[in-house]
C-alpha cells in the first residue's frame, strides 16, 4: 500500500520533488497509438514535465537507403508513415527524379495527385477516429473506417495493396488507372460530402468534444516556427504554410484549392484544419479527375539509374506535414546519404514545452490532435 506520495516519486537518483510523481505513459498505453512513451512528472493530475521517449521502433531507414539501390529502396518510404504511404513514396521518387532529371508524363502526375489526396483523406479519417477514441468516443472510429474502406478498396484495385502501396516509380507509375478506379473515385467524391456533414453533426458540433478541444493545448505560431512544426499543427496556429503552395510540386499549381487556416492555436483549430482539409482534398480530386490527360504513365528512365553528385531535396505535404527527402548522390546507383525529414518528429518535439502545466486528459487530447504516427517519428 502506498503510504505517502514520496513512495510514488521515483525520479532520477531519488531527486524528484516530494510532491510529484513519475507517470509512465506508454510504450503500451491506449492513448499513445503505438510505442510512444511519455515520461511525465506529475503533480496530482497536473503535468510538470512530459518528456517523450522515442525510438522503440527505430529501423534505420536512412542506413537502408545507403545500402540499397534506388529501386530497392522504393518499398521503404511507405513503411515510414504507413498511413500516408503515397506521399512518402512521392517524396522519394520526386527527389530521385529531380536529381536525375527525369521527366514525368502529365498523366502520371495527375494520377499521383489523385492517389495522394485519396491517401490524405484516408489518413485524416484514421486520425479522426483515433482522436475520438482517445477522447473516449469509440463509434466515430468505426464510421471513419467504414468510409476509409472505400478508399482502400479503390487503391487496392489500383495497385494491389491496401496500406503500403509502392505505386509510384521513378518517372511515373507502376500501372495506369482503369475505368473502375476512375468511376469509383468519382462515386467516392460524391459519397463523401454527406458523410462529412454527418461527421460534423455527430462530432464537430458536439458540445463535449468542443469543451475537450477548445482552448486546449495552445501552440503559438512562434513555437511552431521554433520547432519546425508543419502540417495541420502550423495551420492550426494561423500560418498558411503548405508545401503544396510554398514549394509547388507535381501539378498542384494547376489545381484550385484553399489552405485551411485557423488562428486559434488550440486543439480544436488543428481538428478543424483536418476536417477542412478533407473537403479540400475532395475538391482537388474532382479537379484532377476532370483535367486528367491521356498519355503514357511512364517517362523515359535510364536502365540503370545513377544519381549525379550533389544533394537534392524534395518536399511534399504529407498528411501530417512537411515530409522531405534529402538525397546525396555520388554518381552511383545507391545514394550516398538519404535523409528523411519526417513531420511527426518535429511536431512531437514541441510536446514537452507545450504540455507543461496541463492536466493529463488535456495533454492526451493535445497529443491526439498532433496526429502522430510513431514509425514516422522513429523511422
Amino acid at each position, binding site marked *: 500500500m502506498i503510504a505517502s506520495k514520496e513512495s510514488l516519486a521515483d525520479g532520477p537518483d531519488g531527486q524528484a520533488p516530494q510532491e510529484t510523481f513519475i507517470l509512465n505513459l506508454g510504450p503500451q498505453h491506449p492513448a499513445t497509438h503505438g510505442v510512444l512513451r511519455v515520461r511525465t512528472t506529475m503533480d496530482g493530475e497536473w503535468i510538470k514535465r512530459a518528456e517523450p521517449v522515442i525510438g522503440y521502433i527505430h529501423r534505420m531507414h536512412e542506413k537502408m537507403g545507403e545500402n*540499397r539501390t534506388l*529501386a*530497392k*529502396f*522504393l*518499398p*521503404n518510404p511507405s*513503411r515510414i508513415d504507413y498511413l500516408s504511404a503515397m506521399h512518402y513514396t512521392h517524396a522519394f521518387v520526386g527527389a530521385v527524379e529531380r536529381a536525375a532529371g527525369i521527366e514525368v508524363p502529365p498523366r502520371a502526375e495527375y494520377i499521383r495527385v489523385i492517389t495522394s489526396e485519396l491517401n490524405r483523406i484516408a489518413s485524416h479519417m484514421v486520425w479522426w477516429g483515433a482522436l475520438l477514441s482517445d477522447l473516449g468516443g469509440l*463509434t466515430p472510429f468505426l*464510421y471513419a473506417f*467504414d468510409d476509409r474502406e472505400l478508399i482502400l*478498396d479503390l487503391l*487496392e*484495385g*489500383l*495497385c*494491389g*495493396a491496401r496500406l*503500403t502501396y*509502392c505505386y509510384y516509380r521513378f518517372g511515373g507509375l*507502376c*500501372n495506369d488507372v482503369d475505368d473502375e478506379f476512375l468511376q469509383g473515385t468519382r462515386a467516392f467524391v460524391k459519397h463523401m460530402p454527406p458523410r462529412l456533414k*454527418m461527421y460534423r*453533426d*455527430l*462530432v464537430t*458540433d*458536439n*458540445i*463535449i468534444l*468542443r469543451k475537450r478541444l477548445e482552448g486546449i493545448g495552445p501552440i503559438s505560431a512562434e513555437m511552431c516556427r521554433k520547432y519546425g512544426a508543419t502540417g495541420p499543427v502550423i495551420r492550426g496556429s494561423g500560418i498558411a504554410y503548405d508545401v503544396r503552395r510554398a514549394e509547388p510540386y507535381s501539378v498542384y499549381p494547376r489545381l484550385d484549392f484553399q489552405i485551411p487556416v485557423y488562428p486559434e492555436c488550440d486543439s480544436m483549430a488543428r481538428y478543424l484544419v483536418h476536417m477542412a482539409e478533407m473537403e479540400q482534398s475532395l475538391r482537388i480530386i474532382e479537379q484532377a479527375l476532370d483535367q486528367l490527360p491521356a498519355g503514357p504513365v511512364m517517362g523515359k528512365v535510364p536502365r540503370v539509374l545513377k544519381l549525379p553528385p550533389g544533394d537534392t531535396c524534395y518536399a511534399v505535404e504529407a498528411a501530417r506535414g512537411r515530409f522531405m527527402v534529402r538525397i546525396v548522390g555520388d554518381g552511383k546507383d545507391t545514394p550516398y546519404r538519404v535523409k528523411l525529414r519526417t513531420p511527426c518528429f518535429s511536431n512531437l518535439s514541441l510536446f514537452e514545452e507545450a504540455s507543461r502545466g496541463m492536466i493529463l486528459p488535456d495533454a492526451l487530447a493535445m497529443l491526439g490532435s498532433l496526429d502522430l504516427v510513431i514509425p514516422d517519428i522513429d523511422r
Partner: protein
Amino acid sequence: MRLPIPFRETLSGFKSLLIGMRITLGQFFKPSITVQYPRQTLKMPARFRGRIELIFDQATGKSRCTACLLCQRACPSNCIAVEGARTEGEKHKHVTDYKLDFTMCSLCGLCIEACPFDAIQFTKVYNAVSFSRDGLNNLDLVREIETKRKAWLQTHPPPAPGPAASPAPRQPQPEASSP
C-alpha cells in the same frame, strides 16, 4: 428575446447532444456492413498483391522461367533464390529451384516488374499462415508448378513417343518474349 450567453450555450450544447444521439440511433436501424470473414470472403481485385508464384504455362505445361536471376537481383529483401539448369538443345535455361522466403517478402512487386518473361505473378492468397516459421520461409515454387503439371498431364497426355516427342510441346510457344 436573447438569452444570456451561458443559457444559450447550455441549450445549443444540449441540442448538439440530441443531434448526435439521433445520428447514432439512425445508424442503429441500418443493416450491418461487415463481412463475416470465415464464412464470407471478399473477392480480391485483379491487381491484388499476394505472394508470388510461377506462372504455369498451359500451352507448354511448364514454367516460363529461365532462371535469369533478374527477380532475385531486383528483390529489396533478398527473399528469392533461383537456380536453373540448361538442357541440351534449348535456348534458355529452365528453372530447377525457386525458393521464396515469404517471411521477409514485403510484397512490393519489383520482382514481377523485373521479369522479362512474365514468368511470375501475384497470387490472390491473402491469408497465408503457418504454424511454424518453416511453413513460410522456404516456399518451393517449383514444386507448385510440378503439382500443377501433374493435373495438367491428366488433360494433356504426352504425345506418343515419336520423332517429335520432346520439341512438340514447345512449338506453340512463340519466342517473342525473349529480350
